[in-house]
């Protein structure tokens, strides 16, 4: 029951369009943590997240989520997923979007109101999503995933384009969720968010370069700045065999 890891990925390989976008990736995410998935745009972060929620066809490897195979029907109530592009209905209002997703996952009215307040959109329920800014739309998308308080939240770049104050509030909220036992995997391509995470997964070119805490990363690289530390991890991995390590 009290298994420490919420998520394990073993030797995951994914091919898209004839190219291997995830190359024998293995990682582990501990329960009740905020884990940052960092790496440049196009390194395979979104593909990895899609594999975790079970919508990505994989070539080989295992993805185990909360003790089940990724994509298992039991997980659909327990895992929340927010895609990078806001996946909400632009032609209906904020309130209607939330009411629809709440009906599917079985969240009540009070829960809807609290969730809208959490993402800072209280009082704007009657506004059409299509009339919102990009940042506001992604907050609606985030809100729909928070409705049923999932045990594992997979958030693909949830803070892109947000006001700095709201961004810091959201990170505070992520930690509040983690203290309550929720596990969060949050991707970002900006290193200044790395310091907000309990643990860091650094990705580049379909491979995992390191998994550690921010402190461990600073110590092992001798860099105080996390962006510099990431750079040094990349250099070290290239020196150790380039971006195409010998896999048998």
């Amino acid at each position, binding site marked *: 029951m009290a298994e420490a890891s919420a998520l394990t990925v073993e030797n995951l390989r994914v091919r898209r369009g004839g190219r291997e976008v995830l190359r024998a990736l293995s990682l582990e995410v501990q329960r009740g943590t905020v884990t940052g998935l960092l790496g440049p745009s196009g390194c395979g972060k979104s593909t990895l997240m899609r594999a975790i929620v079970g919508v990505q066809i994989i070539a080989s490897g295992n993805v185990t989520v909360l003790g089940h195979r990724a994509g298992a029907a039991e997980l659909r109530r327990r895992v929340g997923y927010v*895609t990078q*592009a806001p996946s909400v209905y632009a032609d209906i209002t904020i309130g209607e979007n939330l009411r629809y997703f709440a009906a599917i996952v079985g969240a009540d009215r009070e829960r809807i109101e609290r969730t809208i307040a959490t993402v800072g959109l209280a009082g704007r329920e009657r506004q059409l999503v299509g009339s919102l800014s990009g940042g506001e739309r992604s907050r609606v998308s985030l809100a729909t995933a928070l409705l049923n308080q999932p045990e594992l939240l997979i958030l693909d770049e949830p803070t892109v384009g947000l006001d700095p104050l709201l961004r810091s509030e959201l990170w505070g909220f992520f930690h509040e969720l983690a203290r309550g036992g929720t596990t969060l995997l949050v991707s970002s391509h900006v290193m200044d968010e790395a310091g907000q995470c309990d643990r860091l997964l650094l990705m580049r070119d379909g491979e995992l370069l390191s998994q550690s805490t921010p402190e461990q990363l600073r110590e092992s690289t001798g860099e105080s700045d996390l962006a510099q530390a990431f750079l040094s991890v990349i250099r070290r991995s290239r020196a150790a065999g380039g971006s195409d390590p010998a896999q048998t």
Partner: protein
Amino acid sequence: MSARATTATAQRVLWQIRHDPRTVALLLVVPTGLLVLLYFLFEGQPHTFQRIGAPLCGLFPFIVMFLVTSIAMLRERTSGTLERLMTLPLAKVDILFGYGIAFGLLAALQALIVCTVGFAILGLHAAHGAWLVGLLAIANALLGMALGLSASAFARTEFQAVQFMPALILPQLLLCGLFVARSQMADWLHAISWLMPLTYAYEALARATAPAPLGGAMAADVLAVAGFTLAALGLGALTLRRRTA
């Protein structure tokens, strides 16, 4: 499958339509407008107007729902909302039935208006009752919806989806017997017409509006329409993939 998820989906589709009053107006006004146009076009030939206009009242919802569904479903696929729905506790049939209920209601409203104008104002007759034409119109709308749903899987853009209307629907409309009796067609065209769902939809409507007694042939046509609808829905369900490349 869950009743709550199905009705929630139907309600969400209706919300989407309600926020688009111009589409609602077009859905409700255009078929009636076309029927009025036919009325004046065949002013001196009431028989022709009766032969074409009466069944057409029940075919409009088929055409419109095919178009609306193929675009709506394509948007659902390209906007990422379908992918999100596939990660939630929602069965594929909840999506299909949700769309069916919403578009079925809309088709009923459309059929009510066009049948009222056609049969009560423009002097068309339905020998077996205008209500029967209305019911067939709803069944045909569901057939159009089911075909549109499957077709949407084969379009990547809205430009492509719109082209499916002349590519898939127009040939059926030409061969179904509405414009030229099928018995007068070349044999090979006649043979093709047997394979097209709209042929059976038209035959049922022609029987409902003509004075000859309804026999087993009517039941066979209705069953054929229902069969095509279920087959298209099944194909549509296959195209809703939980996992994609």
